[in-house]
């Protein structure tokens, strides 16, 4: 054993990167925190689940099909996506969740010495994948809770290969409108790839929100990410996709792992794609939940930020990670924002009314304990 050192085998950039430890299963957390149920308000999942047609696919999936390899490149799903968005199937790559297509793009375009540019307080995976692949991630502070377009431009240099824009931004819900995005694309030019992560696109209500799919023709260096994990309720099956100019997508395909998306996920996504009624019902639920949260959070005196998307970010007068533990004992699981570099903030998924009420009741108790403690110590 003495002569074997894993450390000596690791590249420097991996040595200094730490493994991500996912949270324990709900059953384990419930046991540890002593709660009999848990409302999951931490992952921006759709409480309605998948659209009915997708549910039927899952229910009727023949077990024997598990023995058969799926389509290696999601052939049927790409055709359906092409039809829906009026594009060529070759303009799509389907991955094992949007996280996988992030890796595909970074692997395809970045070489040693290159960098990516994104925001400091956004979805972490762009930064993580770049760093554990040995590339610099240049993080630009948000401005007024939104991606700072000119701040990002200033960070771009000849070694920048990719810019990641989360639109709307997770966790702030802010977005670049059509004009702002167009201005940025024009200023950035065509010597780098701009990735527009539209994971929450289907929840968006704003009229001036840009549809990345419509811009691919105009900007051949634009790549759009979408997912079936959020609106379409297929997070457990892990399926997402990217779209772009054929030449760009062909380049990305060289770094793809084929057969990474299972057959049930492909078929469920195919069934989900055309269900506009599901989108309508989900948006109604989100609107009702957001209205409720706005009213109740205002009553509790808690500042919050809510833009596009099925989540609300709330500022607390105490540590978010302490709030997580206290809320867990009351059966409510939220996402702490310290990891997003928003200490003392939590992000809450907008869910059905029972869960929203449970969250507010639990939050009210936690606040009462805190304010009582402040009075005693003050």
């Amino acid at each position: 054993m003495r002569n074997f050192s894993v450390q000596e085998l690791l590249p420097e950039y991996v040595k200094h990167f730490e493994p991500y430890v996912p949270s324990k299963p709900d059953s384990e957390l419930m046991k540890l925190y002593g709660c009999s149920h848990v409302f999951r308000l931490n992952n921006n999942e759709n409480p309605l689940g998948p659209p009915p047609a997708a549910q039927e696919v899952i229910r009727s999936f023949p077990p024997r099909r598990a023995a058969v390899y799926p389509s290696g490149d999601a052939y049927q799903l790409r055709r359906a996506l092409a039809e829906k968005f009026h594009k060529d199937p070759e303009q799509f790559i389907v991955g094992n969740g949007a996280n996988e297509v992030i890796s595909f793009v970074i692997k395809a375009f970045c070489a040693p010495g290159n960098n990516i540019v994104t925001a400091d307080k956004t979805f972490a995976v762009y930064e993580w994948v770049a760093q554990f692949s040995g590339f610099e991630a240049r993080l630009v502070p948000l401005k007024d809770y939104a991606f700072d377009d000119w701040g990002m431009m200033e960070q771009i240099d000849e070694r920048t290969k990719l810019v990641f824009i989360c639109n709307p931004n997770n966790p702030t819900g802010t977005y670049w409108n059509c004009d702002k995005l167009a201005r940025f694309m024009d200023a950035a030019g065509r010597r780098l790839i701009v990735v527009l992560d539209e994971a929450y696109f289907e929840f968006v209500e704003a009229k001036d929100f840009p549809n990345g799919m419509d811009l691919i023709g105009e900007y051949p260096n634009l790549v759009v990410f979408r997912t079936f994990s959020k609106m379409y309720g297929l997070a457990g099956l892990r399926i997402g996709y990217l779209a772009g100019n054929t030449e760009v997508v062909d380049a990305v395909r060289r770094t793809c792992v084929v057969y990474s998306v299972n057959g049930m996920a492909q078929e469920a996504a195919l069934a989900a794609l055309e269900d506009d009624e599901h989108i309508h019902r989900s948006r109604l639920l989100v609107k009702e939940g957001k209205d409720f949260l706005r009213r109740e959070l205002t009553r509790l005196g808690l500042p919050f930020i809510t833009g596009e998307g099925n989540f609300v970010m709330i500022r607390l007068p105490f540590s978010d990670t302490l709030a997580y533990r206290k809320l867990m004992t009351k059966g409510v699981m939220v996402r702490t924002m310290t990891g997003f570099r928003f200490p003392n903030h939590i992000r809450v998924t907008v869910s059905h009314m029972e869960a929203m009420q449970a969250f507010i009741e639990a939050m009210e108790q936690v606040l009462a304990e805190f304010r009582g403690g402040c009075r005693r110590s003050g």
Partner: protein
Amino acid sequence: MALRVQTEVSLKVKAGMEFLPVVTAFAEKASVALGLGGPESLAITLATEEVFVYLCAADPAHGPVDVRCWRGAYYVEEEFLFQARELNLAAFNLTAQPSLHSDRGFEDTGLLIASRMVDRFRVSTDDAGFHLTLVKEKNYPPLDETILPEPAALKSFSVRAPDPDELKVLIRLILKHHRKLILPPAFNFPGKVVDMAAAGELSALVAADSAGHLGGCILFRRLGMRMVEFFGPYLFNQPPGSGMARALGEACIAAVARSSIVGLISRYPSPDLPVEYFEALGDLTYRSPEGEPLEIGAYYRDMGEDPGSVVWTHPELEDFLRREYRRLFFAREIREARLEGEASSPNSVLAAEFDRGQGFVTLRPVWWGNDAEQTVNGYVKILCKEQIPCIFFEMDLGRAWQSHFATALVRNGFQPRVVIPYGGKGDLIIFQHSPGDCES
């Protein structure tokens, strides 16, 4: 925040006295090459000689010994890796008294000398064998009397990393403006702080204006594998409501976010600490320079969603732990660790870390043995005799064997005071000795 600068040399010999000159020459040359000055190199060479002689005597089979030396930021570490069925390391105890009436006593005298020649040592075992590690620090010049211009209130500021010269100025400002606080001993040596920062063992953030005027700072370092300890924020002449302390606190949190660090801890908080970002864990009693008791709270925050964990404890501590975990809302599965007749070492070993300037010492278990109660008692007697007012003991609840010290601690006047989540392999309990028990 690299753990170690990877500069290392190694030697493999058998545990035979004929190799003693080789081992000592290796220690001397390696420690100089790795940056120690003459007196420090001589000290670790002498310690090496004593340890190797001890190993030769302890291993009549003359098994292999691996010796590795590597450079840390401000120290050299030397590790001996060897096989031994049983090893009596009791001489490493501060309380050890050499016996001149037996051969064994002479051998132990060597180990005792070795322990006094270095700044720190630790012992551990794994599949590869026993690891005995000696640490010798570089020597730094003491603080000079440089006169610094008095910082003014800043109209605007941003938070960034200081350069090495700014860092030395910041250390001097901390010592000038916050001398009454408990500060890490390294702060008495600005050069050492710069070396620690260069090696990634310490990080600093400064609040400064665009012209380079300094308004405040915060420093932080890794504490074990999963914790970061921070010092500050320290402000220099900034008005209340400047927002600087909060900006420094947030910047420190952001610097640690998205890493494997699970918690931030402040054991010696400054008055400017933005407490709304932290949880009060409990108080420990220190002494003011005038000798008055000083209750100082430890502050903590999780860096992510606590997944809960398992801790090992002795029944003696279970009520305390349950009460603390309930109060702090930590999900823990408490498992009882008890001795059930299995073979155990006759001797226990503790390490002592002194901060004589602040009047405290921290004891940590190195090895469990059946004489734990006498060992702890011996330490208490010596430390009381040396009139060290604050004696702490850190017990790692992630290492079941350490909980065996519980009875010895309680019987020797220690009380559990504070639980630091993830402060060691698992949570850490800090015990404090009741000063009254020194007098009895």
